[in-house]
């Protein structure tokens, strides 16, 4: 007996950047392809900077997205302004493409709630990143239900890791999405590890995509290191969802090249050889090779791009570092729409605390 359900698997580019399948019509739009490339590079440079900021104590714990840029960039370039993103903590790439500013992302990881108050109109209905694993899957279904009730042509994308697919929330979300044919696309970022626990310990199912089958809808696998493959499948899935044809689950197979977070040390549980092999698959090099072979990219353009990205990143770091701290009252301001009188004057309590701490510092 086999528990394998035959599911599609999409890949256009092999690790050397050679075409292994015929690209869809957009495949000769080199503006699009170079744009995807630029976005991945920007994400990677920002990500590197964020890790460096953590290492020097300027932000707190950060979850690197190294190696998974293709997934986020593909989703981000296909979401329309009125679609909704319900992300998790490793979604820097998609967030950047939704207009979330780099300084907002740094503020969030730097311990400041303002980082989730996105200023760009594109992300105004997007959820903040989700830290409790898999809970966002259900929120996405709630958003999708609202869209469906109102008869709108919009879609929701929600992302999660492979570990998240073990949680009840995820399975309950698939179930309701299938039962109600909700306009939601589940993107599983299968990066092979949930902190120290490898994919095979999460589930006995040979693919994570087949979990959709039990819920009555379509699931498939995609090479998550091939941005063109992810682009193609997300485009298809979003189009279906917007036209009321129900949910899709895309399992994007990639690899977490970095530590789980800056608080983690992946060498404790992971083979160096495995990581080395995974570097051969990484998404940026792959698209770069393809573009270079098509003469759409060269060393000069690469240098210019890197300089431009570094300028953007540095400007964002400067803005972040000049943002100052929130006023103390901010911790009370948004807990309730209006602070209930019956809870007493906790503002006064906090202001007294501030005064005491300032006095304490004065003695130092």
């Amino acid at each position, binding site marked *: 007996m086999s528990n394998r359900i035959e599911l599609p698997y999409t890949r256009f580019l092999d690790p050397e950047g050679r075409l292994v399948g015929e690209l869809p019509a957009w495949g000769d739009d080199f503006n699009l392809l170079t744009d995807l490339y630029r976005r991945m590079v920007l994400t990677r440079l920002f990500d590197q900077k964020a890790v460096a900021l953590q290492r020097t104590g300027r932000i707190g714990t950060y979850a690197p997205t190294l190696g998974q840029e293709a997934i986020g960039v593909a989703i981000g370039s296909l979401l329309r302004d009125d679609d909704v993103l319900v992300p998790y903590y490793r979604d820097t790439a998609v967030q950047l493409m939704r207009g979330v500013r780099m300084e907002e992302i740094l503020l969030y990881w*730097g311990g400041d709630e303002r980082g989730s108050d996105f200023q760009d109109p594109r992300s105004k209905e997007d959820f903040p990143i989700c*830290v409790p*694993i898999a809970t966002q899957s259900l929120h996405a279904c709630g958003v999708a239900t609202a869209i469906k009730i109102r008869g709108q042509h919009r879609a929701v994308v929600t992302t999660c890791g492979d*570990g998240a697919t073990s949680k009840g929330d995820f399975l309950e979300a698939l179930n309701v999405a299938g039962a109600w044919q909700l306009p939601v696309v589940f993107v599983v970022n299968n990066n092979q590890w949930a902190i120290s626990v490898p994919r095979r*310990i999460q589930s006995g199912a040979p693919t994570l995509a087949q979990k959709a089958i039990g819920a009555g809808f379509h699931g498939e696998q995609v090479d998550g290191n091939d941005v063109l493959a992810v682009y193609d499948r997300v485009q298809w899935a979003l189009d279906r969802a917007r036209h009321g044809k129900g949910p899709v689950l895309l399992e994007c197979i990639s690899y977490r090249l970095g530590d789980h977070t800056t608080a983690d040390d992946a060498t*404790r549980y992971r083979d160096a050889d495995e990581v080395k092999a995974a570097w051969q698959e990484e998404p940026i090099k792959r698209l770069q090779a393809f573009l270079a072979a098509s003469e759409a990219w060269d060393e000069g353009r690469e240098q210019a791009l890197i300089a431009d990205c570094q300028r953007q990143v540095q400007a964002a770091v400067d803005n972040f570092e000049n943002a100052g701290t*929130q006023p103390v009252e901010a911790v009370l301001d948004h*807990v309730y729409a209006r602070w209930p009188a019956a809870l007493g004057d906790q503002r006064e309590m906090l202001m007294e*605390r501030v005064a005491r*701490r300032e006095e304490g510092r004065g003695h130092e």
Partner: protein
Amino acid sequence: MSNLNDTLEKRALLEAVNLALHRAMQEDENVVVLGEDVGVNGGVFRATLGLRDRFGFKRVIDTPLAETMIAGLAVGMAAQGLKPVMEIQFLGFIYAAMEHLVSHASRIRCRTRGRLSCPMVLRSPMGAGIRAPEHHSESTEALFAHIPGLRVVIPSSPARAYGLLLSAIDDPDPVIFLEPTRLYRMNPQPIIDDGRRLPLDTCFTLREGSDITLISWGASVHETLQAARMLEERGVSAEVIDVASIKPLDLDTLEASVRKTGRCVIVHEAPRSCGVGAEIAASLYERALLDLQAPIQRVTAPDIPPPLYRLEQLYIPSPEDVLAACELVLNYA
């Protein structure tokens, strides 16, 4: 005695937890550890470090990522006579396990008139102060303390972590054992690994005093002791009590102290409303109203989710905040 202690390795709270787990697993083959990342990685804080190497895959289990499942499994395992010690990686992720704690673990003994029981321990880090991300800084002990059938224990020193965890594992009922992350690596002390248990139903008087009683638990004990030392410099003698077992509460010790000093301040990191501080204050009013010289004061977090880390220090009561409350109580007409 001090000579012996000098030769002993000093251990921080985290290592004391690890030591107790080793000891418990060695003493009783029914003790099984399960949770996310507890095996190869030894837990994200390393509380379970070395257990997998020593006791193997069958007793140190990396589970799929699912808290509801971990808690539900523990109920089933415990009913079979195993003693599951599960780790929930951070207290902020425990809510998925709540259903099993509240609806099953806490009442299976009662429902079956003692035929089945649930001798499990749920360990989880708690509290703010380590610049952790969202949902990693919660102090929700009151949620568990409210549930009949559960015990709730919070150590505030390495030695108490060691002795209390061993008792928690022995206990025939479910115990929620919360470890203040802020203390994990602070103030190491010599620990004798002799398997000595500490009782789960008494408070610990850390400092005797005659003018005022300071009651606290968990990480806040640290700031409370600092406040007591500051009071001493001002000639005020403070008694400091570590509640340690939040449920059931050792009210006798608290009452005796308050009767002696006539004044009381309760310090906790959890939000104020419906916190355990309210329970203690109400009980002390019931028992010792006429011995109190001033209204009991609470020093707590405000009623807000723990802020992200830039403002988290404001959330945590400081020694100066405790001192201010003490002044109010001491100067009460």
